[in-house]
């Protein structure tokens, strides 16, 4: 695990660091990427008194795809299926929106789109993952209770119970679920629950070079997510009209983002 992660870090430092200084919002000194969730590691984990939040800051995402790579490696995600992915939004001067996500953004966005023949007004990247809905449709529809909400608020899968009916896949408004072609059961992003329980950040958060993916405890008043969520800034959730009450928030999400 460590080897792989430090490898990813090295790759990131070596290849993208140059451009990072241009987009780094907090200055170069914060290149030290944290691994631990403050306030969790080494302490007793009381499952009934935990609350976590995930914030994606769209203004910071550079579409490098490191998170997707980390995720694919962490879970050995079969090709063509995605627990997380990054979308590229391109907005033309006609207000036309062009969205794509080749290989779920695994290879990063190294080339501009060539199929757009109008002047581009704006471009941004939108990472997607499980919204950890508090009213999760996937949990509601699962006929065998294989998908459930843990006391600490994570929507998780019991892959030993799942019958592979794919009802949850239909029900998830965000399409973050898929049927694993190898195990034949449903699979989804867990915000790296196994890591969180050890006090470690989710793999995608840890490797994100710009801090666009933020994760932390809402019980810890010093955590970044606590400060952002309790602060005055505007945060949004995806597809609010679905009534799913996500614990995943977006900072700087434009109205075009679905």
């Amino acid at each position, binding site marked *: 695990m460590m080897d792989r992660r430090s490898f990813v870090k090295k790759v990131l430092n070596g290849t993208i660091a140059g451009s990072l200084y241009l987009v780094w919002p907090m200055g170069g000194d914060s290149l030290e990427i944290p691994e631990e969730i403050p306030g969790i590691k080494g302490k007793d984990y009381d499952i009934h008194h935990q609350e976590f939040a995930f914030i994606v800051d769209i203004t910071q995402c550079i579409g490098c795809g490191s998170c997707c790579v980390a995720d694919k490696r962490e879970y050995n995600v079969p090709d*063509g*299926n*995605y627990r997380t*992915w990054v*979308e590229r939004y391109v907005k033309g001067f006609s*207000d*036309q*929106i*062009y*969205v*794509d*996500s080749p*290989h*779920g953004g695994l290879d990063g966005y190294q080339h501009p789109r060539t199929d757009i023949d109008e002047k581009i007004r704006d471009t941004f990247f939108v990472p*997607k993952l499980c919204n950890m809905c508090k009213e999760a*449709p996937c*949990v*509601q*529809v*699962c*006929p*065998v*209770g*294989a998908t459930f909400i843990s006391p600490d608020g994570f929507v998780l899968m019991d892959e030993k*119970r*799942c*019958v*592979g*009916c*794919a*009802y949850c*896949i*239909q*029900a*998830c*408004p*965000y*399409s*973050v*679920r*898929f*049927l694993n072609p190898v195990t*034949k*059961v*449903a699979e989804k992003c867990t915000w790296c629950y196994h890591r969180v329980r050890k006090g470690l950040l989710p793999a995608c958060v840890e490797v994100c070079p710009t801090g666009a993916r933020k994760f932390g405890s809402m019980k810890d008043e010093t955590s970044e997510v606590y400060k952002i969520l309790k602060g005055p800034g505007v945060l949004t959730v995806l597809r609010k*009209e*679905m*009534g799913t009450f996500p614990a995943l928030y977006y900072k700087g999400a434009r*109205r*075009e*983002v*679905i």
Partner: protein
Amino acid sequence: MDAAHSSAAMLVSNYVFPNDLHVHWSMMIVLYPYITGLVDGAFIIAALYYLFDVKSLRPVARFSLLFALAFLAIATLPLLLHLGRPERNFNMLLTPSPSSAMAGFGYIYAVSMGVLVFIVLFVYREDLVELRATSKGWLQLLYRAMTFDSIDLSKDALAFDRKIIRFLVGIGIPITVVLHGYVGFIFGGVKANPTWSTPLMPVIFLFSACVSGISAIILAYIVIRKVKGRSIDPDCIKTCIKTLTLFFIMAFTFEMLEVFSHSYLKSGYHHMVEGLLNGPLASSFWLWQVKICSVIPLFVLGVMGIFKIKDAIYNFTAAIVSAILLLQVLIMRWNVVIGGQLMSKSARGYTEFHPEWFDKEGILAVVIVMAIPFIILFVLSKIFPFWTTDNETNVK
């Protein structure tokens, strides 16, 4: 919803969420509501005779029950073929999640199956008693069980049987309605899919179920009688066709109402629904489901209802219309189940579906699944005579 406004603008980018490229519910999930629908419709015909005393349906009443039984017997097969882990299917019965619309299927199915089997046994008790008398060994034991160990065929006993049948059919109606309305709700309850999540879904499924079942009975009755060189009861066919007309008008109206309300209310992701019907589903929905398989039969059914037509032509037309309507319902199921999934939840694009031939949910598997009930029917026909009036050359 701002994001969803300009429909033309959305489609240019045709962006499908990466996980939405796969269509997870494929042909077996098209068959599943189709098969339960056939059961429902056939049961309605039987109920009209046994409960509502529509005497003209007597020739097909018993057959309808057997037909329903043969199809109900395999209704779980497409589901099992569809499951990623079919060996775990008992989890649904053993540890059902009460919040899930799907979890109840096993129970509702078991109850319908039980009721239907009892109805058939009571309807055929006379025949079974006869068979019991002429059989030996374990076969006799079987018949003893099937006749509830009663050989009493007195007038009183048969009258009592009829009461039981009426009672069972009486509770059978809400059960079949629930069975199929429920199948519709499995789709209607998915709020993430704008073509499915409408309270009309169970209603549409229910009426189209009746259409397919009644059509199947008409077609099977005419074909089997013709092949066997037996007469076809004109009154029976006329009553069936009238019932079919009624149900089809309802079904078609509700199907169109759903499309109309999407485009009139312009709610949610209506531009995606419109784009779907006018894009990827343009031919399977507008051309096949609506024009060829709905408008034409509607017109023909109208002619059959208004004008006096010779029996032979009437029967021929009845068979053709029924065949088209059987296709209509199948296409409708396809358009709902597969069509609904072509629409990505990105609200920006549509995926594609290409049926496989040899997959466990492929075309060959579909053909085999649909052939099994006919084999079951054939076996059943050896024990349970289809027609009440088999010995008569002309039923009336």
